[in-house]
């Protein structure tokens, strides 16, 4: 690291790197704890753990009528129950610790760079994945998202690893066009929307998995799918997360985006590949919201649309930066050429 940025800068950056590594390790441990919890749960039929380790909403976990016939189920023995509860709590604690380390990484990165920690792909990825985990932790109780634990920890672990291994970039000054207050507003709202859409996408994916299992009559007495909330609950949770994310995305893409684009690039809307893709994402999610109100599109088709939305969202974030060379948003490859504004 250059010394002209001051001694403190290097220390902060070092701290950030260590904190993100620590967060990655703890996310891994949380994932392992979740896996132990859920593998222990597999041995336990659902009815006996109606209110056990996995606190689900009242409507959740109802086994389908005419499920597998079974004799009087033997309650889980004391050690199994203890194991389930302990690992469930452990996983939650570890997730919280990891999220705290994650936050430290972000804050120290911001200190090192003397700006918001989302100036490049690496920073955006670790910030965005933090939004995912923070959203999960905040909504966990309210929406009964405990069943999302293994998926969120796994996903965030992957995102953090991808960021550290492939996207890492040392702290560096911003490209000129990025030096604007809109960096805070525009990118932060885009990031919050991205995190929320990702959570909504997970819910919709599980909706589809559960719907498929129910259709084939394969929702057994045990197993992960059987412990997911009922389809109507999944659909409602997914809708509420999307209903939050959509206005935020609208704000990011269709309000602050054009305003900033006008300031930096002299044009409100350029049909830049990233703009186009963000617009496509917006249209797909608009279609999702319409689909929920259209007969014949509710449920399954709406969930599929939500997944298409997540796909365009993440392609927009990663794909466009790597595959499109015309994009003015392609900050991943450093400041391009003669133009001041990455044109």
């Amino acid at each position, binding site marked *: *690291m*250059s010394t*002209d*940025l001051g001694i403190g800068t290097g220390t902060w950056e070092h701290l950030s790197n260590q904190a993100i590594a620590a967060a990655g390790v703890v996310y891994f441990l949380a994932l392992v704890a979740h896996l132990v919890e859920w593998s222990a749960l597999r041995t336990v039929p659902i009815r006996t753990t109606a209110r056990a380790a996995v606190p689900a909403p009242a409507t959740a976990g109802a086994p389908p009528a005419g499920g597998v016939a079974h004799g009087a189920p033997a309650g889980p023995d004391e050690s199994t129950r203890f194991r389930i509860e302990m690992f469930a709590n452990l996983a939650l604690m570890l997730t919280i610790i990891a999220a705290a380390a994650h936050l430290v990484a972000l804050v120290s990165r911001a200190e090192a760079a003397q700006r918001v920690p989302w100036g490049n792909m690496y920073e955006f990825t670790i910030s965005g994945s933090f939004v995912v985990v923070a959203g999960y932790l905040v909504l966990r109780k309210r929406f009964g998202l405990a069943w999302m634990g293994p998926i969120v920890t796994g996903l965030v672990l992957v995102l953090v690893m991808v960021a550290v291994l492939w996207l890492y*970039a*040392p702290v*560096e*000054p*911003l*490209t*000129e*066009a990025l*030096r604007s207050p809109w960096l805070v507003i525009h990118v932060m709202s885009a990031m919050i929307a991205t995190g929320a859409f990702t959570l909504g996408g997970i819910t919709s994916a599980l909706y589809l998995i559960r719907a498929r299992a129910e259709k084939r009559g394969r929702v057994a007495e045990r197993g992960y799918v059987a412990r997911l909330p009922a389809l109507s609950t999944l659909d409602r949770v997914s809708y*509420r997360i999307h*209903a939050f994310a*959509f*206005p935020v995305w*609208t*704000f990011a893409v*269709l*309000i602050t985006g054009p305003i900033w684009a*006008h*300031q*930096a*690039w*002299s*044009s*409100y*809307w*350029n*049909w*830049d*590949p990233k703009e*186009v893709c963000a617009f*496509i994402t917006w*249209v*797909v999610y*608009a*279609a999702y*919201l*319409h*689909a929920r*109100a*259209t*007969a*014949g*599109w509710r449920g399954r088709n709406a969930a599929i649309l939500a997944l298409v939305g997540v796909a*365009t969202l993440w392609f927009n974030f990663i794909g466009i930066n790597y595959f*499109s*060379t*015309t994009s003015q948003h392609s900050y991943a490859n*450093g*400041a*391009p*050429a*003669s*133009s*001041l*504004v990455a*044109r």
Partner: protein
Amino acid sequence: MSDLRTDQPEETGRWQPSGDRDHHRRAGELTAWELLRWTWRQLTSMRTALILLLLLALGAIPGSVIPQSGVDALKTQNWQAAHPHLTPIYERLSLFSVYHSPWFAAIYLLLMVSLVGCIVPRLFVYWRGYRKQPPVAPRNLTRLPDHASYTTTDQPAVVLQRAAHHLSRRNRVATSSSDDGWGSPEEGGWVSAERGQLREAGNLLFHLSVLVVLVGFGIGSLFGYKGGVILVVGNGFSNTLTQYDDFDPGSLFDADKMEPFCFTVHDFKVQWIDSGPRQGLARGFQAPLTYRRSCQGDPSSWSAEQSYDLRVNHPLSIGGTQIFLIGHGYAPVITVRDGQGHKLYDGPTVFLPESSDFESFGVVKAAGLKAGQDIGLEGLFYPTFALVHGQPINVMGDDKNPTLSMLAYVGDLGLNTGVPQSVYAMDKANMRELKRPDGKMFRVDLQPHETVQLPDGAGSVTFHGVKHWTRLQISRTPDVWITLLGVVLALVGLLASLFIRPRRVWVRARRRDGSTLVEVAALDRSGGGDLAPVLSSVVDSLQGEEGTRA
């Protein structure tokens, strides 16, 4: 379609449901009016809107994959050159200008028609519904999925009055009257409460705002313009068409309405990063300039001079026009003389950067005093020149060691043919490259304040020094506030339509066996709410007040 009965105007005039008069028609046959009606119904249905939305998303994809001539003309040309077989097909499908293509316009126009056709009837329905009272409570509240009941010793009238009082705080409330079949209030009655009607209002507002945004967008692009100019530091610009290097007006743009400002760029400052991962790149661009809002007529009537530091992200607004700093580069100051010492060319010459280190390419075209004696120079400018293993390289963008390296030509540049030429390219058809007397390659390699004599006594070239140039984008988007207002209203409407929960709550109380049976039911009309807490809060408030009074 061929079976369409357009030969019977009295039938096309009004729609006949399926009366006996139509017995002579074949099954499934529609009149033109019925067909129109059917088409309109289909077009304005939610399902069609949904499909059009998806088509819009699908249609936008090619534009993010295939280079667009409106976005990056150069890249599009390169792509077309590289794909000679695909290009004609793509051109026929307007794939190089997707967002201006007829088929893309067809999608969004259909979507807009569908939107209007959907929204306008809903506006009327909403207006009528808004003035209506909340609906009568259903007879059997326990049949609703979310309901609760309890018995109390209070009289039904007391319970209902309490319910009306409690619910009227955040709801529109209707109560039973004795003439609706319920007999006297002592026997029982109902309270009906409704809230969240603004959800539909928000929904309507959002969709109408989309139209406002499009109107604003249309006005901006029809009446506005966008132009670019490269200005060497020290030069001035006045806002007239002829001063622009490139100009892209809207179809209804009126050149007479251009604001008559003028400005002069006095300097260009840039900080080069000497170390760290972005070494060699630049930041902190500043172009201090002075401007006048009006430079019309003779100079005494010009408005006062003001100054501004033009920077990236900080455009200068003069009236409704904005000036943006979007690029910079070097303009070596070059003098060309002919063999007799006459000055043929003198001044800063804009060189276009070819890479991020500002190695730049440029052309000097000096018209000779006699035909066939034009002198042309073509080559590179290195801001920080260095020789590494005999190879000329450019170290960075800062002008620490500015060096010119060009080839020289003599002949006819074709400047007098009347055909417009680019200042950045030389037509070498009638030009002869100058060589050393021994036939070896001759280069004009110059550092500041150096002069080189051209071979064959053709003349001399002097490199005086380097100036900066700035590339400015000047644009005017009239009435942009309409778009902004539309977008903000759309967001407000969107929030209302997503977060306001339309809900109905009913309370029925009836006297039975000396006590009062109170039934409460709630219905969430958005289909996304959890009603259990609502019910318990209503029941609690009805019972709680009872407790305090007891």
